[in-house]
């Protein structure tokens, strides 16, 4: 792999991207190829719908019967929403140590994939992430609503450009963070930086200076450009468009340079953990204890998973803290955390064993016990992260009523069990051979991950929203009654997974796939 940055290399990077994309596409066969095509068309269709349909809704700017108040309120929020896209893109790219890989590290060893090509690949894959897509659809929809149907196409151009620029900026920030992290004391520097940023955000929220700061965000120019475009004020529109194009190109080039710099530094954290020495513990007292220990080691000794879980536990809690969410709204948070946690590894739970899956399958243990251990570990990891989030969020939520407390607790248990059952079902049905030692790897291919995350987010958010009702109406008993059928349904699904897992052919397929 060439790691020295040069103009010749830089020129080759975009040219190398196409063969890599073809290589990646060639690995899709039969139904997977059709599935990918359908998913891409669906994403494209939904994006067009998100950017257009809100402009036709009642209340949108220029709509008949709508008041200007509704759309202008949305217009005022647009700069903050655009800034939110950047924030989410940065968090996503930094958490995945520089974004997703077009070709997995092990597969890429045989090819001269330069850091520049890798950078462009990561940029290309960044939108295949449900957080990115939801943000993009939200800002496109909000812009359409605030601008109305007249001149909408021209209005959406700067917004689309901003989405691209924010992604490129986030990618550059992610490479910079990875470059710092790979320094001898880089991990501590990054932790200190994160804490400092959190402290600054805390002070801004506590002193009520966050909103005035957001009002003065430079993204106000993107909103203005959207207005210029709809109103035919082309000079102002062109000025912003040209600036955004320039900023995007600069961000892509800076990101590429940083990607080369990162490639010259070893991933110290991962290498340290991978060759770490662990003190021997007493012999396990039972079969389940022995299995649990091995399954837990797979998660807690992985730097990327630990980092991802910490982020998932802390970030939604901090957002809730900053937003001062009330207890009934907190019912939605466990779903977000549980879905995020499952997407780190749970949707392909056996891949944590890697080639060891073949050895583990040779051990004489009832298959149900092995599945039970996997389910328990996933459950405890998700519950720990959820509890941390709720504790953080509760700091500003005031004293809960008993009904609110019961509803939040029930929501946490229900969505966690729901996510565990769904994740294990997917893990058994569609295993993938993935090396999760690499922070940039995902447990399934990007498009599959989009599908998984959309389905998990939808089901857990809707379930969480159901529990806000008993929380608001002070009906603790109803929250418990509501939880019972959900838990029973998840238990039934788990039992079906266990039955499938009992089939040696199914287990062999899973073990061979994740070991490949």
């Amino acid at each position, binding site marked *: 792999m060439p790691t020295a940055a040069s103009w010749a290399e830089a020129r080759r990077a975009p040219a190398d991207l196409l063969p890599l994309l073809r290589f990646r596409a060639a690995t899709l066969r039969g139904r997977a190829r059709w599935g990918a095509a359908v998913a891409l068309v669906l994403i494209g269709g939904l994006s067009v719908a998100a950017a257009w349909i809100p402009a036709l809704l009642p209340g949108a700017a220029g709509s008949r019967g709508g008041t200007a108040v509704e759309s202008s309120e949305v217009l005022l929020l647009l700069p903050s929403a655009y800034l939110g896209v950047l924030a989410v893109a940065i968090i996503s790219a930094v958490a995945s140590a520089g974004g997703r890989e077009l070709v997995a590290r092990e597969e890429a060893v045989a090819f001269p994939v330069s850091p520049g090509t890798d950078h462009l690949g990561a940029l290309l894959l960044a939108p295949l992430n449900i957080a990115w897509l939801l943000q993009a659809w939200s800002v496109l929809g909000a812009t359409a609503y605030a601008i109305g149907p007249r001149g909408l196409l021209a209005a959406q151009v700067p917004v689309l450009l901003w989405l691209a620029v924010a992604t490129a900026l986030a990618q550059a920030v992610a490479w910079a963070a990875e470059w710092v992290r790979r320094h001898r004391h880089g991990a501590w520097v990054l932790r200190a930086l994160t804490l400092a940023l959190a402290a600054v955000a805390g002070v801004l929220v506590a002193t009520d200076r966050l909103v005035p700061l957001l009002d003065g965000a430079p993204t106000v120019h993107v909103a203005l450009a959207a207005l210029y475009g709809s109103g035919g004020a082309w000079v102002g529109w062109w000025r912003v468009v040209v600036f955004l194009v320039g900023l995007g190109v600069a961000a892509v080039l800076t990101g590429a340079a940083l990607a080369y710099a990162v490639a010259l530094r070893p991933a110290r954290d991962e290498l340290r953990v991978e060759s770490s*020495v*662990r003190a*021997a513990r007493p*012999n*396990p007292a039972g079969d389940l204890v022995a299995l649990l*220990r*091995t399954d837990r080691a797979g998660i807690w000794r992985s730097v990327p998973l630990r980092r991802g879980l910490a982020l998932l536990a802390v970030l939604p809690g901090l957002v809730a803290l900053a937003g001062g969410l009330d207890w009934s709204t907190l019912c939605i948070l466990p779903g977000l955390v549980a879905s995020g946690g499952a997407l780190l590894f749970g949707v392909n739970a056996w891949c944590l064993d890697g080639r060891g899956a073949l*050895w583990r399958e040779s051990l004489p243990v009832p298959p149900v016990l092995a599945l039970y251990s996997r389910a328990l570990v996933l459950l405890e990891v998700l519950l720990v992260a959820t509890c941390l989030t709720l504790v953080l969020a509760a700091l500003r939520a005031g004293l809960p009523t008993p009904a609110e407390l019961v509803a939040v607790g029930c929501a946490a248990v229900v969505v966690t069990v729901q996510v565990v059952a769904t994740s294990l079902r997917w893990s058994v049905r569609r295993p993938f051979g993935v090396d999760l030692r690499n922070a940039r790897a995902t447990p399934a291919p990007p498009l599959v991950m989009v599908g998984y995350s959309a389905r998990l987010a939808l089901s857990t958010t809707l379930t969480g929203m159901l529990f806000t009702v008993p929380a608001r109406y002070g009906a603790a008993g109803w929250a418990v009654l509501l939880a019972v059928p959900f838990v029973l349904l998840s238990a039934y699904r788990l039992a079906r997974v266990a039955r499938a897992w009992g089939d040696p052919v199914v287990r062999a397929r899973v073990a061979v796939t994740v070991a490949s």
Partner: protein
Amino acid sequence: MGGLVPRATPWEHLQLAARLRRLPAGWERRARDLLERFDLGGAAHRVTAGFSHGMGRRMSVLLAAFHDPAVLLLDEPFDGVDPLGVEATLEVVADARARGAAVLVSTHLRELAVEACDQAVVLRGGCAVAQLSAAQMVGEEGARAYRGLLG
């Protein structure tokens, strides 16, 4: 013979195997002995993700033989293994044969195959093309016969 769980140590692999295979108390002594024979004593508590290919292969052979199985199936056990590891693997095979276990070794390395086994089955394109005694595969004569069968 399978791979290793990336984030567990060799000792943790052995603890899990001993527990699930119901090995009698005192298995630790045999485990330590095997680790030393395979030159893994110093890495017994190191996470296996950082192991070299050869170390991983040696540990896999160790795990396959640890519980004295009645059938020992080794797939390419000499792949990427250093001479000490090869010696330890051959010892494990000899021990298994001595106690009456059936040993099946799959390898491309003829010289090591004839050292490990009595009978050799030559496969070409997934089909058995010959079954010979290991003695017929020894030396230059054996090498010629082997090449001829693969040819």
